[in-house]
C-alpha cells in the first residue's frame, strides 16, 4: 500500500468512531427527496452532504492534536494532503452508490420513474458540485485549520454562485450554443478533476506553510 493510500485509510479510521452520525446523515438526507417526490435527486443530496463528512478529519485532527501524529509518522506531509482528497473521493463514491440505491428503492416504493440517463447527468452534476466545494474548502482548512476556516469556507462558494447568477442575467441566452450533452459531461468531469488536482497542489503548499 502506498503512502497516499495509507493516509486515506487513516482518515477512514479517524472518522470510523463517528460512523453512526455519518450513516444517519446518509440515510436521512435522501428522505428529503421523498418529500419532493423526486427519487433521482436522492444521490445528488447524499453526495453533496458527503462534503460535510469529508471535513470531519480536519475537525477531529484539530481536536485531538493529530498534526503531531502526522509529524511523527514516517510519511511526507504531501501524502497526508493527497490522502485527504482521496478520502473525500472515496466518500463521494460511497455516497453515490448509497444514494442511488435509496433512490431506486424510493422510486419503486412510490411508483415514480427513475431514469438512468437522468441519473447519469445528475451524478455528474453532483460530482462537479462536490469537486468545486472540496477544491475550494480543503485549501482553506489546510491553511487555517478547521475552526478558523469553517467560518469562511462557504464565502467563495457564494461568490461563485453570485457570479454565475449575474452572468446568466447579463449574457444573451439566444447567442449561446451549447455543445452536445456527451461533450458537456466530458468537459465537466475533466474540468472538475483538473480543479481538484490544482487544489491538491495549493493545499500541499498551504499546509507546509502552516505546519513549518
Amino acid at each position, binding site marked *: 500500500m502506498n503512502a497516499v493510500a495509507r493516509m486515506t485509510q487513516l482518515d477512514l479510521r479517524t472518522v470510523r*468512531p463517528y460512523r453512526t452520525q455519518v450513516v444517519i446523515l446518509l440515510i436521512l438526507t435522501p428522505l428529503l427527496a421523498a418529500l419532493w417526490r423526486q427519487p433521482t435527486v436522492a444521490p445528488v443530496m447524499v453526495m453533496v452532504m458527503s462534503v460535510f463528512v469529508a471535513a470531519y478529519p480536519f475537525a477531529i485532527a484539530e481536536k*485531538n*492534536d493529530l498534526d*503531531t501524529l502526522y509529524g511523527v*509518522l*514516517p510519511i511526507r506531509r504531501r501524502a497526508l494532503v493527497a490522502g485527504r482528497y482521496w478520502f473525500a473521493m472515496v466518500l463521494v463514491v460511497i455516497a453515490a452508490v448509497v444514494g442511488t440505491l435509496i433512490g431506486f428503492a424510493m422510486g419503486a416504493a412510490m411508483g415514480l420513474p427513475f431514469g438512468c440517463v437522468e441519473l447519469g447527468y445528475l451524478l455528474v452534476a453532483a460530482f462537479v458540485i462536490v469537486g468545486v466545494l472540496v477544491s475550494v474548502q480543503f485549501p482553506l482548512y489546510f491553511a487555517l485549520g478547521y475552526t478558523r476556516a469553517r467560518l469562511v469556507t462557504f464565502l467563495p462558494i457564494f461568490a461563485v454562485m453570485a457570479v454565475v447568477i449575474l452572468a446568466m442575467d447579463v449574457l444573451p441566452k439566444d447567442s449561446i450554443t451549447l455543445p452536445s450533452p456527451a461533450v458537456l459531461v466530458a468537459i465537466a468531469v475533466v474540468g472538475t478533476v483538473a480543479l481538484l488536482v490544482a487544489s491538491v497542489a495549493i493545499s500541499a503548499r498551504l499546509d507546509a506553510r502552516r505546519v513549518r
Partner: protein
Amino acid sequence: MSKTALALRHVDATRGTFHLRDVTFDLPTGYVMGFVGPNGAGKTTTIRCLLGMLRPDAGEIELLGRRVPTDPDLLQDVGVVLDHTFFVDDWRLTDVERALRPFYGRWDSTRYRSLLDGFGLDPAHKVKELSRGQSMKLMIAVALSHDARLLVLDEPTSGLDPVARDELVGILGEFLTADDHSVLFSTHITTDLERIADYVTFIRDGQVMASSTKDDLLDAYRLVRGGPDDLLDPAAPLAGARRTSTGVEALVRTADLSRLEGNLLVEAPTLDQIVVKLGGAR
C-alpha cells in the same frame, strides 16, 4: 549502527516569537540524555526540529546517522512519547494499532498486545478513558511495538504521580538493554533523571547552557553555603545566589572554588539544584 543517536550543530530556529540560538549537543548511541530546562526554555522546539516537524533557520541536525530533514522513513526507528496523547480520543486501543500498523514496516502486533497486557491496559478501552499514566504507557507501547531504536520523550512525566514516574524509569531501563537503543528525555523534573541519565543537556531561553555527561556536570559545580556576611563580594561568579537573614546559598564552578573566601560549607549539588540555580541565574 551509527555512533551518534542524534546531533544538533549550531541550530537556530523560530517558533512564533520564540528563538532557538546556536543549539549544539549530541547523544552517542546506547545512552540516555536528560534534556532539562524550565518551562518555555526551548525543549519542545528543539525536539520538533529534531523530528523534522520544524525547519531550522540555520544549523545541521543528524538523527541516527542521517541528516534531517530527510526521508521520513527514518521515523520508522524513532518512537515519540509526549505529555499528552496524539490519537483520536474515541479510538479504542485496538483502533490505535489498526490505524498505525500500516505505517510501520516492523510493527509487531503480538508485542503491542503483550505490552498493553503488561502495562495493565485494556485493549477495549478508549483513549479518552485513560489516565495520564496510562496514556504515557500507551505511547510507550506504540513506540516499542514498531521497534524504535531511539525514544524521544517530551515531558512524559509531567502530571504523573511518583509511582507512574518510577514505572517509566523501569520501562526505559528495559528498553536500554539493547546496545543500539538510545533515549532523549526532556523534562523539567530533574529527579527523574538522577537514576537513568548518562548525559545531560541544560537549555534556557533557547540556548544550551551546559551539555556533558551527568557525572561531569555534577562534578563541574559545587553548592556553597555560608553565614549572612559571607560571599558579599565574591571573587568568583555565583549562580542562583539565595541570601536570607541567616545565610547565603549559591552554586559555583568547582574550578572557581579556591577563589572564594570565608567559612563556607561546600557540598556536591544534586542535578535538581544545578538546574534550579543555573535556571535562575541571568
